[in-house]
């Protein structure tokens, strides 16, 4: 909304209004002693955009007391009572007041406020802006009369306003933009307008969570990825002892701050959950073995740790917790995952972990209003426990969805090369580091790779993935060892950050084609079990290879090039390019 032009917003609001015709509308009534007509389209748009159908009515200018008498208690009142407009030149005149006229004005205004309190005390929720003097007094070192006048009436508000009054601190709204952006007094004396479009937008963003909360439309659950979201590092690759989540490791402190924020949310009854492509054992180990971690495993009501796409998992989470998909906020460091969720489940609010990690706690603080509740009830506090019990009863059922359309929209391009001299170091590093998507987990040294490069018995394929959002760099390796009469896939690995896009299947097909071109027919391959690579246990089965031997630690396969190429179809939305040498 902030970037939208006002004319576009008026049009968009009208379109949203048409789409909501026939639905029950909430009525918001604005009372003001200045002209605030531009608030109408902006507030309507801000709420309609959150699927709350509202009609905003701006009542007659400077007629707050009469207009508020006998107000329908089902409408939500918003009050702009600007002390600068108590009389024509009040801001200036008050500085010349004697003590007695000062007191008289205070008393008169207090009486009027009391009357308004009485008119609105039966409404469900009233927005009343605290008085502000800052536009006129920002350079005053010592308070003058106007400032004292405003402060005194704010004290009165604090003491006497009925409980249903939500007092809005306009200074927070001003400071989110700036006084000069919020005020435009050019036409104040001619049309009694004081505030700019930018102010109204900021004001609406500020109060909208409280209105949404009244209609149970605020967010209920915060679901997070693990690696580089709950901690810095990849637990499956770096190990539980090397990830950063407290002052013990570099940058860990920012994750610790995030944990405190999450813990405070959980305390208020917000459901915390994990949705991550990881081995469950690895994640559990972090919670078990890292006492410096603020959050405990049980703080997370729901944990979904598997290799399914995250949109399906989030959908499953919403079903399991029995909350609307639109009441979920999802946090991940990967733009790919964020875009996938935005594309499939646009009603989920997503937050991407900032690249500058010191901005991460601030990002969450700025979005806490997503979880706004007018009151925290005993039930809210129990809610997390209830969900926990509920989720223990049900076994999570995965819902698979067809994400091919989404993947096709990404323009994925895979660039392949064989024995590229420049990348020996990276190839070595990947064989050393990759634990999860690694079929045989053979670790090599630069000398080993060098030897393979020089030998006619080996191919060392590497792969780089790019899409319209950028390149992932060199993230896949396949080493083929040619024996007499057959080709053996010695190593097949991918960095886990590119998984979920069928890259692995595309890569395997390209490798098989390359082997076939070389004149080989039979391919041997194997899976060697480690603590970390359970996710690829059936990789070759899925690709139609024949299992010829298996025991607890190993599975051996064979396939025939022609058979493979005729039964396994190419991934048509991935473009493949071979680098020429």
């Amino acid at each position, binding site marked *: 909304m902030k970037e939208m*032009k*006002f*004319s*576009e917003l*008026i*049009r968009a609001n*009208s379109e949203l209004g048409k789409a909501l015709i026939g639905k029950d509308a909430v009525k918001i009534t604005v009372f003001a002693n200045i002209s605030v*007509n*531009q608030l109408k*389209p902006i507030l309507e748009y801000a709420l309609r955009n959150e699927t709350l159908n509202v009609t905003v009515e701006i009542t007659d200018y400077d007629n707050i007391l009469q207009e508020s008498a006998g107000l329908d208690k089902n409408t939500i009142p918003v009050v702009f009572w600007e002390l600068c407009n108590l009389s024509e030149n009040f801001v200036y005149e008050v500085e010349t007041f004697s003590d007695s006229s000062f007191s008289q004005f205070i008393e008169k205004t207090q009486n009027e406020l009391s009357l308004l309190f009485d008119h609105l005390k039966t409404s469900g929720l009233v927005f009343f802006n605290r008085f502000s003097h800052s536009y006129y007094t920002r350079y005053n070192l010592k308070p003058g009369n106007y400032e004292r006048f405003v402060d005194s009436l704010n004290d009165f508000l604090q003491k006497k306003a009925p409980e249903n009054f939500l007092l809005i601190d306009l200074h927070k709204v001003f400071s989110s933009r700036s006084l000069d952006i919020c005020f435009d007094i*050019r*036409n104040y004396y*001619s*049309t009694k*307008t004081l505030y700019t*479009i930018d102010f109204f937008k900021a004001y609406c963003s500020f109060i909208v969570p409280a209105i949404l909360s009244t209609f149970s439309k605020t967010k209920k659950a915060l679901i997070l990825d693990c690696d580089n979201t709950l901690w810095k590092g990849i637990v499956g690759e770096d190990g539980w002892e090397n990830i950063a989540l407290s002052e013990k490791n570099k940058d860990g402190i920012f994750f610790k701050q995030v944990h405190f924020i999450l813990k405070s949310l959980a305390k208020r009854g917000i459901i915390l959950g994990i949705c991550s492509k990881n081995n469950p054992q690895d994640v559990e180990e972090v919670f078990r073995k890292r006492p410096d971690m603020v959050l405990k495993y049980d703080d997370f009501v729901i944990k979904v740790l598997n290799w399914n796409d995250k949109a399906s998992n989030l959908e499953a989470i919403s079903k399991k917790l029995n909350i609307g998909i639109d009441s979920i906020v999802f946090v991940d460091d990967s733009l790919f995952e964020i875009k996938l969720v935005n594309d499939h489940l646009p009603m989920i609010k997503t937050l991407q972990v900032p690249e500058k990690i010191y901005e991460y706690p601030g990002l969450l603080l700025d979005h806490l209003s997503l979880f706004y509740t007018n009151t925290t009830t005993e039930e809210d506090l129990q809610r997390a426990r209830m969900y926990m019990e509920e989720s223990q009863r049900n076994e999570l059922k995965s819902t698979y969805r067809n994400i091919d359309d989404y993947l096709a929209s990404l323009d994925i391009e895979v660039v392949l090369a064989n024995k590229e001299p420049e990348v020996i170091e990276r190839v070595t590093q990947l064989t050393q580091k990759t634990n999860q998507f690694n079929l045989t987990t053979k670790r090599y040294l630069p000398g080993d790779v060098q030897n393979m490069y020089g030998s006619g018995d080996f191919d060392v394929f590497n792969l780089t993935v790019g899409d319209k959002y950028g390149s992932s760099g060199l993230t896949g390796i396949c080493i083929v060892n040619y024996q007499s009469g057959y080709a053996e896939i010695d190593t097949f690995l991918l960095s886990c950050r590119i998984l979920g896009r069928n890259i692995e299947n595309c890569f395997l097909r390209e490798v098989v084609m390359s082997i076939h071109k070389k004149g080989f027919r039979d391919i041997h391959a194997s899976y060697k079990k480690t603590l970390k690579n359970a996710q690829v246990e059936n990789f070759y089965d899925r690709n139609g290879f024949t299992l010829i031997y298996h025991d607890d630690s190993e599975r051996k396969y064979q396939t025939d090039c022609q058979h493979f190429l005729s039964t396994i179809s190419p991934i048509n939305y991935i473009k493949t390019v071979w680098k020429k040498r």
Partner: protein
Amino acid sequence: MEEKVKKIMSDVFLVDINEINNYTSPDNLPQWDSIGHLNLITSLEEEFNIKFNDDQIIQMLNFKLVIEIIKESLHQ
């Protein structure tokens, strides 16, 4: 620029863009009331990054005049 202004007017007054011509004015477009006028001024200032003065605001009484006054502001 004329097309931009037409688009803005059609959005602000919620009418079809083809309904805006040189003689469109508060007299023949009911949505162009005092609030509509304020919204129009705000939107034009936002679009062209200009600030109109009091006299200019009062003079913008039909589409043609709006265009002239924007040109005048842009030249200042």
